[in-house]
């Protein structure tokens, strides 16, 4: 059995990973922690930061900084989850890719997993149900677990 966990760094995706680890432990399943980094997110965040702080002259520098921080942050989260998997005796691996979240998630999720686990919300918090969830949940062939 292979379980895919979609990790975007949010609290909910980490809670999702905990559920997936619990299942993988009982089923002796292989867990894949998967994350998609979208450069457009760094660009938008940097531009809005620059606009709000009236410092658009440094927007490109902001963007590079945000992009590097996004990569570092997700690697740290993955490392922490890997440590937990190791402590729990769960066979786990990490995949981090770049591109459009929707496309990459669908491509990976429909490549032979028995379960896909994801958080209900994204990094924007509980303002609304995650847009990625609405876009992909019906298009993934395997059962999808949504965690709050």
């Amino acid at each position, binding site marked *: 059995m292979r379980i895919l966990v979609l990790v975007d760094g*949010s609290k909910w995706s980490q*809670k999702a990973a905990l559920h997936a680890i*619990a299942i993988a432990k009982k*089923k002796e399943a292989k867990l894949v922690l998967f994350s998609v980094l979208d450069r457009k997110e760094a660009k938008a965040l940097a531009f809005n930061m620059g606009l709000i702080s009236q410092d658009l002259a440094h927007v490109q520098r902001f963007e590079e900084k945000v992009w590097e921080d996004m990569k570092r942050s997700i690697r740290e989260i993955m490392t922490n989850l890997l440590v937990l998997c190791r*402590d729990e005796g769960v066979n786990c691996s990490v995949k981090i890719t770049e591109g459009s979240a929707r496309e990459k998630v669908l491509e990976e999720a429909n490549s032979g997993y028995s379960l896909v686990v994801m958080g209900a919300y994204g990094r924007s918090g509980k303002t609304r*149900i995650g847009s990625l969830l609405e876009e992909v949940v*019906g*298009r993934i062939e395997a*059962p999808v*677990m949504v965690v709050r």
Partner: protein
Amino acid sequence: MSIFRSLIDRKFRSIAGDRYDEIVKRYREFLLLPEEFVLPEVESILIPLDRFSGDFHGVLDVLEAYRGAKVRLVYLLDAQTFRLIEETLGEEEAQKLLQVERERGKRLVEALKESLEGFGLEVQAEERFGDKGDDVIEMASEYDLLVISRSFGSEVTKTSPISPVVLKVVQHVLVPVIVY
């Protein structure tokens, strides 16, 4: 687990510094605290079913992980639909349809019950009239996990691969949901 907890705790505390408590209070919604890094226990599961519910065999492998949990299978009949049928076609027709629905429900529930009990889950089954969306949302609050077919409530198509009832349920329930 202890290594992991201390690692997270140390990292977050070191970033937050002496404002740790203030930050935790204000940004609680975004933070998964060290004490929340525990593997969840699922002891009770709700599985609503209806005439549209799809093939459940794909989710059985996952449910096997919850050996020992208590499962409530509820075959839901839409109260409003039956009321409308009764009003338009008469009581006799409504009863005929109800009988067919009940037979269908019984077969589906029995098949799933047998499979789940084979995995060591304790299963309780029932039939219920009500509103498929609102009733599931209300019932789910009493369980650790909700398991629902993506076609619960209505048929799905290639362009609309998940039932609107399921979307509503997923948006509103507060417990984890497995959509199969």
